[in-house]
């Protein structure tokens, strides 16, 4: 086989009905996969469990995954234990925490901001206990998800014990709005467009944009099994190159409306079209609630930072999903593949960071990374409680 020939050129990739499935749909429908010699069938899956199983057993070559999923798979805590890797982050941000209409009225928030919302909730939970009200339930989407860890992070930082003071449960995103309206849950943390869909249906309100909890948190990644990556190195690079190309296109403000239309026309997300359009709109500067919104490419968004992986492993440890003895740096390096990302990015002329880590929480505003080719503008990465995670994944400063 010559150095340029792809090991495999027909691929099946899985996605979940969410706005951040857009990079894969756009790469298919605007020819970014074809440009790299790939013919891709996109399969819309009903659950993250199904995505994991089908990738693990080879029914899918790869898939849009929640960023912590390949880590959980490699750690063997996801039930299947087929090691997975990722060489690319598909997007940052995009999630929100919404509460039912009645909880919203009880909270009496003056502004939609994590600290005041968390304090109001804590006060309400104390009152609940005194009057003997049933425990409030909050839903997220999967045990190994940014949603789960950011929701716990927010609750804990506001003095609420996520294991004792509330009940956490998992509900698939397309069913969230129904559960909220049935009163089976009091709130949820979910990706776009489902928070807006709750508002559109008049059953809930978004009170926190997860950007406000952790600025530019990594959200979805492109995951494949470790064995697949080893057997298809050129195909893997071509796939990542095509997706970086699609993400660059999708992130240009002038293309967002067309991107939304492509997603709507694909039929992959069965939500009101207006909520899909809004989720992909670039929010106006100075809108503190919607902050930066979905980021698909700028600020080196596609780069799989080992420091992101280590933050997730640290959360798994914090909440008892893994043994405390596990070496976060070792797991991060096994699963996140920044070098593959650099090689793929070079194929489409995109500059990448030269380091594999950054400190998480240090930057409250725009900053710059020095590259041989010039400066790379980076986005903020602050936590709302001021915590800073050093390169070893544990807080460098106690907040």
């Amino acid at each position, binding site marked *: 086989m010559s150095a340029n020939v792809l090991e495999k050129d027909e691929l099946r990739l899985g996605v979940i009905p969410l706005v951040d499935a857009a990079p894969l749909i756009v790469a298919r429908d605007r020819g970014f996969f074809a440009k790299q010699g790939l013919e891709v069938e996109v399969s819309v899956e009903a659950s993250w469990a199904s995505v994991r199983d089908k990738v693990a*057993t080879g029914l899918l070559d790869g898939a849009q995954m929640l960023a912590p999923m390949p880590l959980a798979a490699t750690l063997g805590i996801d039930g299947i234990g087929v090691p997975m890797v990722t060489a690319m982050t598909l997007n940052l941000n995009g999630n929100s925490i919404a509460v039912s209409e009645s909880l919203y009225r009880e909270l009496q928030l003056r502004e939609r901001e994590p600290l005041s919302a968390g304090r109001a909730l804590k006060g309400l939970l104390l009152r609940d206990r005194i009057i003997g009200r049933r425990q409030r339930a909050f839903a997220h989407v999967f045990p190994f998800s940014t949603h789960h860890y950011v929701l716990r992070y927010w609750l804990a930082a506001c003095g609420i014990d996520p294991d004792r003071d509330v009940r956490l449960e998992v509900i698939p995103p397309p069913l969230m709005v129904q559960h909220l309206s049935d009163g089976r849950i009091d709130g949820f943390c979910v990706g776009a467009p489902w928070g807006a869909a709750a508002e559109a249906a008049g059953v809930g309100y978004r009170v926190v944009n997860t950007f406000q909890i952790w600025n530019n948190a990594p959200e979805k990644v492109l995951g494949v099994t470790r064995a697949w990556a080893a057997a298809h190195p050129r195909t893997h690079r071509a796939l990542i190159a095509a997706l970086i190309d699609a993400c660059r296109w999708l992130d240009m403000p002038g293309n967002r409306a067309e991107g939304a239309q492509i997603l709507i026309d694909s039929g992959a997300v069965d939500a009101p079209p207006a909520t899909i359009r809004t989720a992909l709109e670039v929010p106006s500067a100075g809108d503190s609630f919607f902050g930066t919104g979905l980021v698909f490419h700028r600020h080196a968004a596609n780069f799989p930072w080992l420091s992101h992986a280590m933050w997730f492993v640290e959360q798994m440890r914090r909440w008892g999903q893994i043994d405390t003895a596990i070496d976060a740096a070792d797991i991060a390096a096994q699963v996140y593949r920044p070098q593959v990302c650099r090689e793929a990015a070079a194929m489409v002329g995109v500059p990448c960071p030269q380091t594999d880590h950054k400190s998480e929480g240090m930057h409250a505003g725009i900053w710059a990374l020095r590259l041989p080719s010039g400066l790379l503008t980076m986005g903020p990465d602050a936590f709302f409680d001021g915590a800073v995670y050093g390169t070893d994944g544990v807080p460098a400063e106690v907040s």
Partner: protein
Amino acid sequence: MRVMLVDDDQHRVVLLRQALIDGGNAVVAQLTTSDDLLTAVAHHQPDVVLIDVDAPTRDTLESLGQIARDRPRPIVLFAKHGDAETARRAMRAGISAYVVDGMPESRLKSVIDVAIARFDEHQALRRELEETKMRLADRRDVDRAKGMLMQRRKITESEAYEQLRKMAMDRNLRIGDAARSLLAAAELL
């Protein structure tokens, strides 16, 4: 073994249920994919949950045993017990299994093998039914296309069939699809 079934396909559930009972198992609950799975698991205490691989509520079932607290019992996927080939066969058949940790492997395997066999059988039946339906539709459309060709080109039935077959071959189509595209084109003219 106490089995809970979660599937929206009533015909398939009936097949599987009977096979499991014949094998000496108890089907303790039978649910649709939109039912409240957590409450059902807590109430029925199954040893195995067999669920449609494409049920959205699988993610809800996954959260069991993740954060150990007041959950009924830990649940793990069978793949940890079984081999990779069984997992692949199950996935292709469209079934996923969740089992209580510590169940004897030999008994588990027999339940899962029965489930895979029934799901496969059901899939084959459904495919056969679809193919029969397709063949019937093809025959009807081929007859209509032949009739149209005979009338317009003043040719015999066998000549019309020959022309239709050639058209299908040239365009790499099945004869039924060729007939349908010819009929659609004729409708436009």
